[in-house]
């Protein structure tokens, strides 16, 4: 089979924001033999179903909706004549001496094996499911992830439900709650296990508060009722210290639909199977500042690398990975995973940092992206190398829902054994972030809900 194997310079796996930006950047860096393999029918990935606004303020200096953003990114691709294969799933990947061998399946080209000299992984993420949360109960129709519901309504014009309860307040969930309310559904409440919402403040205000949808923190779904269609869910209070549901607090809320917005997981099954080293904290590949993974010539960007909250940063990361892949073709270096490179570690208050490694000679301004573990005010972000502080950044506030970026000169970090990013601040008393002014409204809603 290998003698028939198609050879390409760069394969981009995924046709969403990260993949499209990466492909365009590789081309602009002088590589024209680039192919984007997209498992979906049309380009844009999740942007296609994100019909709300709020995209592109950084990248296009104007506020666009998801489909508009995707259309602009795809136009950039087609203007350059970059090959795009729809409905093409890369389902196997193997590092070989000449590059990376991909097994691709598509209706247009059937089954093919492609040898790519460099690969950009941009497969995005998937949603956490009921099974992963181990919510007990029956298994009726009417339980969907928020993204699946968004697909049904925005792309297929199908109303998933009428009386809706949401678990989790991730951004997709908040957006979908408003969307369903716009289409005539009753969103009874959004319950959130943690005392901190994982959604952005703006979305909580403009999707929930604007329409009187109560957000109940420290509550979770503890049972599911109904044998054919969902009939009700049981919701219990959660103990903030133990993070467990408090027995005896369950209230039954009749509903026909339960939507889950409980987190995204980078979809790295292909990478894992190919032997890419993953970071258990970010659930994405372990990369250096060029976004190169542990496999030489394999790069990773966007939500498959770590979960973003702004598509503009996804595109920026895609571009950087695309440029790096193009540079790799010019001068393939395999120094990325070596032991003498710099390790970047999350320190106090930080849950993960990307990149996790720096090459021997990091060039230019290096963005370090990370998330904080809790809500912090008046904080200092410290970057230290081998225990010595090299730079500090002041921030008024940092919340887990929002990805943080600090940029610093690679020269400051070169040669260090370890670099650590940590947060220095007083903990925000969580109660202030429980939206206390909403409490009376929430209680009133409870009466109706029952």
């Amino acid at each position, binding site marked *: *089979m290998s003698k028939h194997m198609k050879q390409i310079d760069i394969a981009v796996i995924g046709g969403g924001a990260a993949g499209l930006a990466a492909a365009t950047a590789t081309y602009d860096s002088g590589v024209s033999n680039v192919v984007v393999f997209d*498992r979906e029918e049309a380009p844009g990935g999740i942007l296609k179903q994100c019909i709300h606004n709020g995209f592109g303020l950084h990248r296009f200096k104007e506020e666009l909706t998801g489909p508009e953003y995707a259309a602009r990114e795809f136009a950039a691709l087609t203007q350059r004549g970059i090959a795009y294969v729809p*409905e093409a*799933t890369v389902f196997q990947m193997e590092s070989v001496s000449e590059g990376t061998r991909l*097994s691709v*399946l*598509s*209706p*247009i*080209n*059937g*089954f*093919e*094996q492609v040898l790519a000299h460099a690969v950009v992984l941009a497969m995005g993420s*998937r*949603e956490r*499911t*009921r*099974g*992963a949360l*181990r919510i*007990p*109960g*029956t*298994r*009726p*129709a009417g339980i*969907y992830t928020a*993204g*699946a519901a968004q*697909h*049904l*309504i925005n*792309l*297929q*014009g*199908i*109303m*998933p*439900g009428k009386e809706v309860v949401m678990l989790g307040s991730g951004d997709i969930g908040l957006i979908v709650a408003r969307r369903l*309310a*716009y*289409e*005539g*559904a*009753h969103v009874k409440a959004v319950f959130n296990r943690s005392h901190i919402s994982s959604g952005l403040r703006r979305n909580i205000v403009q999707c929930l*508060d*604007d*329409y*009187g949808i109560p957000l109940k923190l420290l509550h979770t779904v*503890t*049972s*599911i009722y109904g*044998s*054919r*269609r969902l009939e009700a869910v049981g919701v219990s209070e959660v103990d903030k210290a133990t993070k467990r549901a408090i027995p005896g607090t369950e209230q039954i809320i009749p509903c*026909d639909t339960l939507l889950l917005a409980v987190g995204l997981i980078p979809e790295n099954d292909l990478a*894992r199977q190919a032997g890419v080293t993953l970071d258990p904290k970010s659930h994405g590949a372990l990369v250096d500042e060029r976004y190169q993974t542990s496999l030489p010539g394999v790069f990773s960007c966007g939500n498959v690398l770590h979960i973003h909250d702004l598509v503009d940063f996804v595109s920026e990361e895609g571009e950087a990975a695309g440029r790096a892949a193009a540079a790799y073709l010019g001068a393939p270096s395999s120094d990325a995973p070596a032991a003498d490179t710099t390790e970047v570690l999350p320190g106090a208050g930080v849950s993960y940092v990307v990149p996790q490694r720096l090459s021997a000679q990091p060039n230019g301004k290096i963005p370090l992206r990370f998330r904080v573990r809790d809500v912090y005010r008046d904080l200092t972000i410290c970057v230290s190398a081998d225990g010595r502080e090299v730079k500090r950044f002041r921030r008024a506030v940092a919340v887990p829902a929002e990805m943080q970026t600090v940029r610093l000169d690679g020269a400051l970090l070169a040669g260090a054994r370890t670099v650590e990013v940590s947060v220095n601040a007083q903990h925000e008393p969580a109660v202030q972030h429980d939206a206390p*002014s909403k409490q009376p*409204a929430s209680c009133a809603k409870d009466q109706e809900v029952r």
Partner: protein
Amino acid sequence: MLDVCIIGAGIAGCACARELAAYDLDVMVVEAGYDVSCGTTRANSGIVHAGYDPQPDTLKARYNVLGSRLYPQLAQELGFSYSQCGSMVVAFSDEERPALEQLLKRGNANGVEGLRIIEDPELHQREPNLSPAAVAALWVPTGGIVNPYGACLAFAENAATNGVAFRFNTYVESVRPLEDGTWELSLCDLLAQDANASSKQPAGADRIVGQQPTPTDTVQARIVINAAGLESGRLNNQVSPHRIKITPRAGEYLLLDKAWGGAFTSTIFQVPTKAGKGVLVTPTTGSNVLIGPDAIARDTARELQTTGEGLAGVLEHARRTWEHIPVQDAITNFAGLRSSCLEEPDFHLGEALDAPGFYNIAGFDSPGLTSAPAVAQEYAARIADQLHAQKRPDFNPHRPAPLFFSQLTDEERARLAEKDPAWGRLICRCELVTEAQILAALRSPLPATTTDAVKWRTRAGMGRCQAGFCLPLVAELIARETGCEPWQVRKGWPGSELAVGLRGCLTDLPEVSMGEEAAR
């Protein structure tokens, strides 16, 4: 007039249908569910037991050992997933060793082959993830695993191909003897009834137990096989003075991601203790790891729910076997029901007392799955003899195994995808299921009509994303094949439609909140 009417399309009913299809008989299977394997067969551990467990000289012991020996050949003939992976019963302390000896003795008495007690180093060499506390185990080389749905469907499809009729969504309200010695069954068409019912009225499983459905028609048969699982006691009691009381007993399970598929190579049981029978940890034919079940008596046959306590209990018990269960990689949890007869805990087989021609397969809890093929072969021979039926020369005992893209070689993949673009279109990314596989399920001799039926046949939606990505695509395919709207596609039971309607079906407008106001 039917020769044989089989009530229930679970493993027992479908195995009987397939064996009877070899004879020149007019056979129909009537099933309340929307598909085969909708009851006790579905959420089952999927173990082909070797037969060391049942007490000697019981029906369970006899048919277990016979059935276990039939599975390898049946899997070949009918193309379903089965693996003789072996099983072990593990003792976690020296106090538990005598129990192993007892099981060994019992197994030998039942005629189970190859049993022996193993200790370290063999014990942990075989199963490195087994808890260090394990001291010894009964090694059972003939233990196996099977996809219970797959086996049941294989029997049913082969029966259908050979002329057996199937009626799904059809509830048997009553059975009564006629004067000429035949039987009349009153049937209710649940789909028709659901279409007439208001949306608030429960259907499906609720209706079966909750409200009595109204009979819509009747059929007449010379022989009835009562393979109705949880409903088998109710039907028996309509025709026989020897009453059978079926107690639904739930078992709760957790299924782990394929990433852990290699954690155990054989089925691991625990020595039964005073605290209970223990739970099993087993690989599945789909390369997942299955953990469970507990055993909780439930009041009605509709109580198919898992519970927080139940799942926690399953995990706690299972940690004896596997200390560090990766619970974060659980992809789903579910409950199954056993149709147990606690008063007379053996199988209830043969013609019911004072009801000639009414054959029971009742109280058919574990090892029912293993025993079903053996019971079916005996029943078919006996019923054929009774009805003076001849073997059909054109009976085809083979059913081609469905193709799974994930199991094909690259050459086969290339050949199929070149011929048919549907083999090139991947619908389920987690389990690598192509459009062609889903279309095959939708066009099978017993067509899948629901997303659950597609899932069970093709594994589309059974993986780690739990249908988040493929559900809309599968629904579109079902709608296209069955001529309905995608939103009308059902998950399973009548009333389990995917959605409430098209956009625009709801007319309420949202109320805008302008910020809270308080006069001062």
